[in-house]
């Protein structure tokens, strides 16, 4: 007895030794994270921050840098892009490393999305942040205001003239430069000629050469295509101008966002001089009113049901997109669908045209987004990182990216380089010339979010446009006042 008692005492001491050693300064565990003890929702503590919008196949995520020489200065580069876009990025990184043996850029694909930067934020706090971060350009002013991005004004003097004005403007905050513009895009009305013809309508009125069609014309064609089944649910839809988004969630089914329709009806979303968001601008309200009326005419519940059935998640495989499976005749989308159509609906007869206009003779509107290359504060390889940013966001990088990813470049000279675009892709260049852009605001993400849920409520006909937009105004303006322009 005595002996075993002694042994047990030693074991217990060992236990405490471990706990005390660990006490060195750590913290306890799951009390805060909810434990995961008693029910599966307990593992809700394991809240995935990002997986739904997450990342990539590991081939894409493998670190590049095999071609690096020993002793080269390491530059860490993070992107949330996934194949095929990330393959193009990787090729650019490899080319840069080849040409600059003293620098070694290591690219990593991190789970994340345009607006969710939990991972970046914590990495900066933990002192393990990347040097260069690929940021959605319309969030740059917001991230700059938050201190997530570093000021690169001095190092980028004189570069502004080579970029499209709107793209450059999006990298600015309070007169300073926080990123270099990378790619851009444009939106158009895609349509399936076969479906329209089969329904007894004439798709030729939509041809780009005839200029933009009116919204009424497009709705009339769409209504001929739409078919309901015996229980009153849509089987085929002619068109969804706005949302709901995948799964019936608030947002755009494809690219028929609040911004798309606000711009189409001549709306302004912000007054940058006054540092005001203007969601109740008459044009924006008119755009939302159109979405409200369209939904009312087409039974919002039935439309939502059709979307939730046919596009259940944002990650629904592209091959199952109703546009390619013949369940949807028209949608507002972008240049990236060119490559997709070739792959998933090679035999279909598709084309795209201007986004339709409220009245005949109106100028069609579209808008452009895109990404940028930004520097994270306290980089240990600042000079090398900026050199890489200038390369990848410069003519060398953008040329490769435009060609391999079929996005559009933001460098003016490349827009006239016909070797980079096939004829279809080139049409988007024309759209880009008249494209608007989202106002660069220090509350860009919150504004987008608020507009999205307003759009959802208006399209569900549960709120009047003006009421929903007034709420956006109230919640976002106070944030803007605090953050500044």
């Amino acid at each position, binding site marked *: 007895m005595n002996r075993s*008692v002694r042994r047990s005492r030693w074991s217990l001491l060992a236990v405490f030794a471990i706990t005390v050693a660990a006490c060195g300064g750590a913290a*306890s565990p799951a009390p805060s994270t909810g434990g995961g003890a008693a029910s599966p929702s307990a593992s809700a503590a394991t809240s995935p921050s990002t997986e739904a919008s997450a990342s990539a196949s590991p081939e894409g995520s493998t670190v590049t840098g095999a071609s690096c020489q020993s002793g080269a200065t390491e530059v860490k580069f993070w992107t949330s892009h996934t*194949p095929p876009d990330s393959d193009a990025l990787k090729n650019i990184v490899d080319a840069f490393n080849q040409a600059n043996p003293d620098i070694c850029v290591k690219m990593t694909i991190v789970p994340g999305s345009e607006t969710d930067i*939990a991972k970046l934020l*914590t990495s900066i706090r933990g*002192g393990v942040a990347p040097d260069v971060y690929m940021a959605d350009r319309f969030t740059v002013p917001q991230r700059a205001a938050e201190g997530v991005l570093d000021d690169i004004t001095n190092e980028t003097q004189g570069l502004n003239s080579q970029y499209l004005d709107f793209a450059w403007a999006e990298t600015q905050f309070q007169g300073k430069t926080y990123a270099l513009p990378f790619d851009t895009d444009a939106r158009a009305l895609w349509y399936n000629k076969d479906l329209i013809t089969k329904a007894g309508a004439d798709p030729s009125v939509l041809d780009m050469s005839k200029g933009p069609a009116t919204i009424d014309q497009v709705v009339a064609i769409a209504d001929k295509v739409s078919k309901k089944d015996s229980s009153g649910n849509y089987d085929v839809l002619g068109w969804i101008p706005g949302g709901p988004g995948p799964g019936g969630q608030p947002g755009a089914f494809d690219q028929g966002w609040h911004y798309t329709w606000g711009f189409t009806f001549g709306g302004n979303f912000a007054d940058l001089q006054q540092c005001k968001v203007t969601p109740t601008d008459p044009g924006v309200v008119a755009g939302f009113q159109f979405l409200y009326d369209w939904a009312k005419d087409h039974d919002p519940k039935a439309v939502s049901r059709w979307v939730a059935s046919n596009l259940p998640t*944002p*990650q*629904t495989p592209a091959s199952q997109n109703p546009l390619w499976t013949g369940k949807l005749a028209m949608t507002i989308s972008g240049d990236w669908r060119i490559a997709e159509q070739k792959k998933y609906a090679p035999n279909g007869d598709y084309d795209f045209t201007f986004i339709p206009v409220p009245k005949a003779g109106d100028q069609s509107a579209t808008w452009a987004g895109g990404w940028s290359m930004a520097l994270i504060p306290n980089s240990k390889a600042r000079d090398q990182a900026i050199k890489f940013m200038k390369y990848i966001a410069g003519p060398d990088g953008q040329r490769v990216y435009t060609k391999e990813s079929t996005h559009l470049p933001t460098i003016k000279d490349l827009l006239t380089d016909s070797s980079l675009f096939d004829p279809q892709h080139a049409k988007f260049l024309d759209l880009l010339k008249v494209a608007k852009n989202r106002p660069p605001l220090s509350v860009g993400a919150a504004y987008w979010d608020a507009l999205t849920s307003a759009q959802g409520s208006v399209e569900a006909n549960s709120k009047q446009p003006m009421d929903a937009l007034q709420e956006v105004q109230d919640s976002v303006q106070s944030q803007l006042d605090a953050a500044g322009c």
Partner: protein
Amino acid sequence: MASTEIARTSAGSSAVAAAQPNRRTGRAILSGSVLPRIVLIAGCALFALPFYFMFVSAVKTTAEATQTPPTFFPQTFAWDNFQAAVNYIPFGLYAINSVVITVGATLGAVLSNTAIAYGFSRIHWPGRNFLFYVCLATVFLPYPVVLVALFDIFGKLPSFGIQGAQSWVDTFLPLIVPAFFGNPFYVFLMRQFMLGIPRDLSDAAKVDGASEIQTFWRVILPLTRPAVVVVAILAAVAAWNEFLLPLLYLQSQDKYPLAVGLAFYTSQHDVAYNLLMAASTLIVLPIVIVFLFAQRFFIEGITVGGVKG
């Protein structure tokens, strides 16, 4: 209170007795087991649905897995999906990471929670109940913002070069070490179980001259084994499935556990649905097996209160 009296008379064997099935229902009439069976089979059908869906999706071809409407039963079995899923991510490496984290966190949970529960149940001291309620109250801390404070702590702790990191960030330490400080859920379960062990046993040990540590280690701990198994399994499942914490704390991809690796099957516009489900099947397999072996302890080891307490 009456229950306590009764419990006390039979408590000596209660932990063991609980494992024996259905003694009191021995005289239930035959018809009595028809309704329960219907309830259970219906319940199981519903509860097995997600599992069935996961497995079936895992063995469908890519075309079939993404087809609308989905098929209820696979037309062809693509068993090589499992092979493909394993090759899609560094599965072996991530599995090792998961095992290391899970073993560490489980060990921590078992060691710390047994000791803490002993202090909260087998020793009478002033303020004990107050502190116990404080302990329970911490389950109401909203974790996302607590996370920020914790991240700051871990970012400043020196790692002494463990896993090549400068601080605890990008090491397994923030995922393992906190388990050594107890968890209110587990403390509660263990405490309730220990309360059910008759006081006479401790008293007898003390009369024999055993110290508090000896009583804990030699008398109480062996009797607590079923609860230890329960806590070990709960802690292991939680650590094995944990997603957010490793995602935030681990910055190098070669340190990811499997639960984070799952995210790699989804991309912004696409999802390798069948491979994701194949990987999910493989990932839950170990815990399913562990559970099947240990499930009888679940009945013995869980004591929430009342009778045995």
